[in-house]
């Protein structure tokens, strides 16, 4: 019996359906092409760094490429950065070919993925670089990165909501923020462990 290398979680279909419903301008296929270019960047980088792909998981958090063996922190950082870099290169080529819409989709996807928030590529690149630090500094850095990811997802959600209220349009920002919060659900459940949040909760309760 063969093992499937592709796993599609139900949350992926929810994510897809939401963006299909919100896509009033019919630009979703451009983002799908940009996502394929983005993932191909990761795949090429994994091959170049001597990694081996074990499988792909599609979920609301996007596509996650699982590797069968761990690589060095710089290699992991390069693999994480390869997606946005591939998107930026594609945007440059498409712009030169006078395809502004396709170029713009690659720019937007690369910019969002470069945010230093987990589980986006920017956050993953930062996390892999933390592996170069001594153990204590790495642990502190990881906690700071997790807290920053939670706060960043919350700010994105609030900004997305404000944009929707302000313009009466553009719900995609809110959707991306909510899905980032969903992707960080594990961190969200453990958010009471963060010192900063522990200091805020008593103040909220006393009010």
């Amino acid at each position, binding site marked *: 019996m063969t093992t499937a290398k*592709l796993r599609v979680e139900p949350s992926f279909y929810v994510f897809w359906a939401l963006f299909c*419903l*919100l896509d*009033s301008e019919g630009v979703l296929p451009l983002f799908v092409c940009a996502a394929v270019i983005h993932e191909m960047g990761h795949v090429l980088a994994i091959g170049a760094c001597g990694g081996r792909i074990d499988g792909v998981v599609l979920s609301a958090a996007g596509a996650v490429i699982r590797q069968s063996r761990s690589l060095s922190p710089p290699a992991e950082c390069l693999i994480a950065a390869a997606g946005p870099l591939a998107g930026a290169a594609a945007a440059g080529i498409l712009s030169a070919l006078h395809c502004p819409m396709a170029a*713009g989709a690659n720019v937007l996807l690369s910019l969002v993925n470069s945010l230093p928030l987990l589980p986006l590529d920017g956050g993953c690149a930062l996390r892999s670089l933390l592996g170069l630090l001594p153990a204590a500094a790495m642990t502190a850095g990881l906690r700071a990165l997790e807290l920053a990811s939670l706060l960043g997802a919350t700010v994105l959600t609030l900004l997305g909501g404000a944009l929707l209220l302000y*313009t009466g349009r553009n719900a995609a920002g809110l959707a991306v923020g909510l899905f980032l919060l969903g992707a960080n659900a594990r961190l969200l459940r453990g958010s009471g462990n963060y010192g900063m949040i522990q200091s805020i909760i008593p103040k909220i309760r006393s009010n």
Partner: protein
Amino acid sequence: MEETIRRALWCAAVCLSILTASRMLRASGALSFLPESDAGRAIAVLGGAGTDGGWSEGLVAVFAPHTQ
């Protein structure tokens, strides 16, 4: 390998079905209660940033409140 291809085809079929259904619903006006998107105009501005000037003003204009 066969299982992977089968899953990929199944995923593509489901995604295409959802996309087609949402396009049909939008064409019929059943989704008129949903907010419109300016993603197309935003990516056109971002995509033209390398060739056209004033992309930041363009983005501000895209996300300005609509009066109609």
